[in-house]
């Protein structure tokens, strides 16, 4: 699934913003695929969970009723790919009545001003 080119370019910083919840659509899965491939490709990848994308991190997710894979197995692979800082929108977290204890991985909540700064210091950004 993860293809790695022989010629690795100089590492750059890529921010992948995840805005869609798991299961209902494939956006989250495809955004995580890009993040994992980019990391395997030698890039420094950061993830920002925003809006309903925060639900990707909710504990206790399972496979879908027809056996369709969730995205939580992809999240479990992040550390192996050196993707270790997960940012979340503090406002998005509050609006959903969630705290860090509800999430399956440690996260860094960001206020809006810090989110703007985060986007500005990453030379590449993809939104899913």
């Amino acid at each position, binding site marked *: 699934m993860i293809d790695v080119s022989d010629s690795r370019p100089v590492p750059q910083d890529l921010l992948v913003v995840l805005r869609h919840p798991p*299961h209902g659509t494939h956006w989250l899965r495809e955004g995580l695929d890009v993040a994992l491939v980019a990391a395997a490709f030698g890039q420094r990848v950061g993830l920002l969970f925003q809006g309903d994308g925060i639900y990707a991190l909710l*504990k*206790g997710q*399972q496979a879908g*009723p027809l056996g369709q894979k969730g995205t939580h197995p992809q999240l479990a692979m992040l550390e192996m790919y050196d993707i270790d800082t997960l940012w979340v929108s503090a406002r998005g977290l509050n609006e959903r*009545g969630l705290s860090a204890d509800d999430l399956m991985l440690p996260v860094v909540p960001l206020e809006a001003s810090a989110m703007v700064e985060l986007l500005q210091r990453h030379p590449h950004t993809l939104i899913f």
Partner: protein
Amino acid sequence: MMLHLLNRSPRSTATYQDVSEAFGSDDHLLLIEDACYAAQPSAGAALEPFGGRVSVLQEDLVARGLAKRVDPSVEVVDMNGFLALTETHERCVSWF
């Protein structure tokens, strides 16, 4: 008596508003797919117009890790319960 089927997250506020305009006093709302997120107590206002006549699909709750996060005013039904709702309601409309 109509069954309304809704599959969007409660952040799709326009969809919830459109459903509420068309929701009769005998109607029932079933939340499936990403509409499961509306069944949490924290989603509150999204379900207010539906006067407690709301169910949510268990299989979709479980997949999303929401099984223990359902507001007590929302009834949890499984796929057989979903089918039963379409049996007892002559018409079913889907909002997306």
